[in-house]
């Protein structure tokens, strides 16, 4: 009796602590531009939150289903260009209004994702990776060559609000990125707790077995893919608005695509907080490296070294490895495999 009670108390205390932590984090995130209004900091904040959203969105497909897409940069670019073209051709005056077009860009990206996903998902996991890379290059090529539409290599200029002063400019974008990151996290959380999400995890473990118990694998995979793509597209749209000039190689950028993947792996594939932690840590490191070694090509070497070290030491990512350590520290006698369902769902 006492055991169950103390266990309940411990879980209750753990959950309360977690909730408190989340509240603190949320408050901090919301007031960041107020306590640190200098453009340098807010710029870092914009990119950090952007990657939190990207990694979380990517995780919905890559982490839950196990189908690794290395071409998500394609959707980032499609979202950016869709947004830019909409703003230009619909003659929207720059300011807050264009933010309303972000969901539209998301929908357009989703439409492309249905087509791309339908083809790419005809293959199994290994080939899927390559096909997504191929599609990314197709989109990049299209962006470069459909000059009348996208401006080609010369780029596309996206109208921006001139009246937002230098100090203020970053702030609305920060909140826009934050909103999208929250939406991505909410979607990820909800999916994970639903039967749909359970089906995705089953597909990751054993796709044929999932089929054998009635999981409609093709429909599920495609849905996860499209949701993931739409979110990335919306984030791309805000990015396009932020940088005000779209070049094919910088918007459909393999490095952005690989970053969101690496961040998720670093944090913990398939977990909820993993992509967030991975994004925050890695973005910090990336900016640091680019600042110090950007000129010489050495930053690539450093980046890759960090990459390799992380993957070899923490192959499962930070969150699962830390969770394991904590569990072992708490109950050294208990077997690692017995994790009460409540504790697992929370990560």
């Amino acid at each position, binding site marked *: 009796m006492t055991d169950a009670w103390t266990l309940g108390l411990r879980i209750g205390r753990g959950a309360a602590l977690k909730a408190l932590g989340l509240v603190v984090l949320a408050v901090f995130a919301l007031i960041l531009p107020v306590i640190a209004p200098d453009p340098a900091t807010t710029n870092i904040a914009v990119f950090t939150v952007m990657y939190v959203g990207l990694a979380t969105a990517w995780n919905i497909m890559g982490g839950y289903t196990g189908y690794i897409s290395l071409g998500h940069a394609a959707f980032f670019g499609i979202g950016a260009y869709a947004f830019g073209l909409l703003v230009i051709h619909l003659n929207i005056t720059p300011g807050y209004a264009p933010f309303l077009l972000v969901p539209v860009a998301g929908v357009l990206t989703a439409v492309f994702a249905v087509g791309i996903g339908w083809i790419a998902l*005809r293959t199994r996991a290994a080939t899927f990776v390559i096909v997504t890379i191929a599609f990314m290059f197709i989109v990049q090529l299209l962006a470069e060559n459909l000059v009348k539409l996208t401006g080609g290599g010369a780029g596309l200029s996206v109208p921006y609000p001139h009246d937002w002063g230098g100090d203020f400019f970053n702030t609305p974008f920060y909140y826009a990125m934050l909103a999208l990151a929250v939406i991505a996290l909410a979607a990820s959380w909800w999916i994970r707790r639903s039967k749909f999400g359970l089906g995705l995890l089953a597909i990751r473990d054993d796709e044929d077995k999932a089929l054998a118990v009635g999981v409609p694998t093709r429909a599920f995979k495609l849905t996860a893919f499209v949701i993931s793509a739409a979110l990335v597209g919306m984030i791309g749209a805000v990015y396009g608005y932020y940088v005000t000039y779209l070049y094919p190689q910088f918007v459909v950028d393999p490095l952005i695509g690989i970053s969101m993947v690496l961040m998720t792996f670093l944090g913990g594939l398939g977990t909820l907080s993993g992509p967030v932690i991975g994004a925050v840590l890695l973005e910090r490191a990336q900016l640091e490296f680019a600042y110090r070694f950007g000129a010489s*090509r050495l930053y690539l070497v450093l980046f890759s070294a960090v990459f390799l070290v992380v993957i070899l030491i923490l192959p499962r990512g930070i969150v699962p490895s830390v969770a394991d350590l904590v569990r072992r520290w708490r109950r050294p006698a208990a077997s690692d495999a017995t994790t009460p369902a409540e504790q697992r769902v929370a990560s």
Partner: protein
Amino acid sequence: MSLVLQAAALGILTGGVYALMASGLTLIFGVMRIINVGHGALVVLGAYLSFALFRSFHIDPFVSLVVTMPAMFALGVVLQLAFIRPLKTDREALSVLVTYAIALGIEGVLGYVFTTNYVELRAWYETASFAIFGFHITYVYVFGFLLCLAILGALFLLLYRTTFGGAIRATMLNRTAAQLIGIDVDRVSALAFGVGVATAAAGGVVFGITNAFNPGSHYDLISRLLTIIVLGGLGSLRGAIIAALIMLVTEDITAVLISPVWANFVFFVILVAVLIVRPQGLYGVRVRDRI
């Protein structure tokens, strides 16, 4: 018409180069089931090694292979042991990231040592050509093609006529079964990776002779190589060769008939078209897990 024929001939010659490069990549996938996204960077590395040997000691690129191939073989084995073998879980996915990291590392080092200026591999006889059926083919292209044939031939001999090759093929077909009959799959994997990287060195020489390159060239290269092996069927050597020829010939003919811009596209268009109809590629096997 003769332009088309010339384009076709060029396509075959360059197809041979890509076939050589793709063969290493598909071999690595077949044995270890990993996608070596760094293969393009390894080809570029091979090209730079030959370039360095030429620049410092005036060694002919083809001759430099005597040095670079064994060196790259050793590098391949080391890379496999250091970065691939330790991966226990989630191997396929993690290996993509690891090999990408290796590619970035190579790109960084090459950029630091050689700068990002474009270079080319030169040979003193590179302008010499001969005429056949009314158009000229340079000797370098022919030597390059012959080299590809030679190395591919050697690869086939290795795979189908030696015990080691048998061990490789067994591991490709069924890793567990191979272990059960006493094959040291770990050793086979490491050595096979070395072989794959050695072929990249050879590919690098021919690639470097026929293209200007810089450390960043590996992106374009790997996207094409990956497309080729998917078209051919992952793990199929025969598929890689045929796919390479098809892709390159079509690309070169498109460049002549339509425009070089759209020729880049053709690559991916063919891939998409084939995937819709035959997801496993030309010679791939429809993979179903053990049922």
